[in-house]
């Protein structure tokens, strides 16, 4: 039911030019993070958010690409071609296991809404930068989904990610 409602199996292109299916290749059986971005973001918070997520990736070390997959979806697919996204990722020092994705404008818009990067206020919703602050995280097989601000402290984001791994130990506080 979650798959039907939220995860259309759209064809997307990675920053490395690979064609992938959203559900089959990116989400299915994985622990993931999802955020939306665009390389020409004029909002001053966008580069800070990217830098913060790079810190998250560093803290997660080689788990990214092995049992955690990070995905960033562009809000401006017309401009953000695979090569533009690749330059952007390189500029920020993005490591392996973190994939930037683009696709047909209609598909990217559909994906944004399906994944709830959307606001009830249509004026707010029309601002692209308003969709760049949220980091969704989830474990597809366990159906565990939540979100946190992408600008949360990197250590706190990493701790939140640890909650996705199913029953483990109680938290010492």
């Amino acid at each position: 039911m979650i798959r039907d409602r939220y995860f259309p199996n759209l064809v997307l292109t990675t920053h490395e030019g690979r064609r992938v299916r959203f559900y089959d290749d990116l989400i299915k059986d994985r622990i993931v993070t999802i955020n939306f971005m665009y390389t020409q973001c004029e909002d001053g918070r966008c580069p800070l958010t990217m830098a913060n997520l790079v810190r998250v990736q560093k803290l997660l070390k080689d788990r990214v690409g092995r049992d955690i997959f990070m995905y960033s979806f562009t809000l401006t697919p017309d401009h953000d071609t695979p090569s533009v996204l690749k330059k952007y990722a390189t500029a920020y020092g993005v490591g392996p296991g973190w994939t930037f994705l683009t696709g047909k404008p209609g598909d990217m818009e559909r994906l944004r809404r399906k994944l709830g990067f959307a606001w009830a206020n249509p004026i707010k919703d029309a601002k692209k930068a308003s969709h760049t602050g949220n980091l969704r995280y989830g474990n597809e097989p366990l159906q565990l989904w939540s979100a946190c601000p992408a600008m949360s402290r990197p250590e706190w984001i990493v701790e939140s990610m640890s909650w996705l791994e199913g029953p483990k130990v109680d938290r010492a506080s």
Partner: protein
Amino acid sequence: MLILRGNTLAEIARRNRQEIIKAGLSRRDLFKLGLITSGGYLVAKKGLSARASYADDNETCSSPPTRAFIELLPTPRDGTMPIQTPVTLNPTPTAAPNTAAGEGRTIAHQAFTTFPPKKFYGVTQKAGQVSVSPDLPLQTLWGYAVGTPSMNNPISVPGPLYVARYGEPILVRNFNQLPTNNGGFGKPSVTTHLHNGHTPSESDGNPIDFFEIGHFYDQHYPNVLAGFSTQPFAPTGDINEAMSTLWYHDHRVDFTSQNVYKGLAGFYLLFDQFDTGDEGTGFHLPSFPKFDIPMMFADKCFDRRTGLLFFDLFNLDGILGDKFTVNGKIQPVLHVSPRRYRFRWLDAGPSRFYQFFLTDLNHLSAHNLFWQISTGGNLLPKPIQVESIRLSVAERADVIVDFAPFAGRTLYIENRLQQTDGRGAMDHVILGAGRGNLVLQIVVDGPTVADNSVNPATGPQFYSLPSTSVTDPTVKPRVKRTFVFSDSDGGWQINERFFDGNHPRFTVQENSAEQWTLINDGGDWEHPIHIHLEEFQTLSINGRPPAASPLVTIGRQDVLRLEADAQATLFIRFRDFQGKYPMHCHNTIHEDHAMMLRFDVGPLGDTKQSP
């Protein structure tokens, strides 16, 4: 027609949304058509919802039809809301966490020897099959079952009712037997908060004190009046701090909205020598449980195709349902006798604001008055006659309704506050009588019985309000702090920062008083702000003192309804216990998206004014 109206409206709303999306209207176009306000949100017109921008059909709530008013309201009176009963716990509870036996607690009880528990309870969290309506399939919900796992009792939603008394400390051993498979939403890792309890931190159900499947957690509830550890109220505490209607609910960080929506909530009533539960004694309030009925209001959404409970996982604004449950049943019926009753109303969320009226569909122009006796579940100094009560998420109000004038008639508790999306009810539009949501039918067809309860019209006095810096100039707040609640495109912030459970923003000095100003920085949202440990009194809202009419905002509360663009100043004490506590928005979607902070109470406080 009544029954189908909700679904018809949803259908109209859906069509309207599609039209707007297809038309690709600009903001100016919407303005011209009168469909948008200067604040930027869409005006509800013929069911049009502000969720137009969401576009996806499947993200709007359009539950299957259900018949209304055919199932009885579950109540402790009828034995259909179970009441907790003591058990023998093995191994015996200890002050230190019993890690070896599988306890998830990591901090020793701080008041275990001061207030040794006199009664011991078990409660088991697990999945179970529950009916919410005869017209929908059985739902697999998560709930609390009376007793230990081996007692194998069924869950109930709401969970079992605790009947507690001041001066009688209790200990609840809380077992997590939830399944790993969550059926689509919910996190089987839990922490149970006793909402408004004057509770030591380690038993409070702090969002980050969660425990996992197969483990248990001993929660010690001293049931003691605030102020017991310092003069002038030592050693018994201040009777004017007595609380009446509390509730408990899951508080798991980042997953609270899902877990509470899935069923993890229940009532906890506190009685004492004045609020006795016996109308022949004390304040003479209607006797429990015969004439004293708790009501938990929760709106839900059910999948159109499967009829199963649906939670919109990826919603950031707040979630509204189109089915109105009371004590777990969709639009139930309550039969009463023509006499006075005490109802304890609770808005259990996740995001809806209500304004309840008593409606007689045959006399729509009538103003059916009743008596409000509490705000925040804490008795007011005296009853206040009202026509309606507004509640935001987690707020409670106790009311007394006299059904004697309505003998033989049928009334409804009707929500007439219009709300079109999960952000709040910013415009405060009150729908006409009979045009809102009829959430509970009350049939006054019971036998005539004696009524020894106090007549609120005679002006009985309950507890006085404890002093504040306004009522007593010698009472000085140690620190004045300001908190701005804002929206930051992807999470909600307090003072421009997000939640971090590992770092307290500030430390309050134990046994001190503070003055807090809460500011909602915009007109696009409403936030019910909840503070743990002790209730507060509002000193001013938008520059004016709190009111007794038409909406009651005086009294002792633990949730401040921070409406659009509002600013409120509170007086609050932090007494008797130390440790970590949160302040957060109780729109559980906002709470799960970082509108929360941690503060600590310790021997030495700081003086950060904008922490």
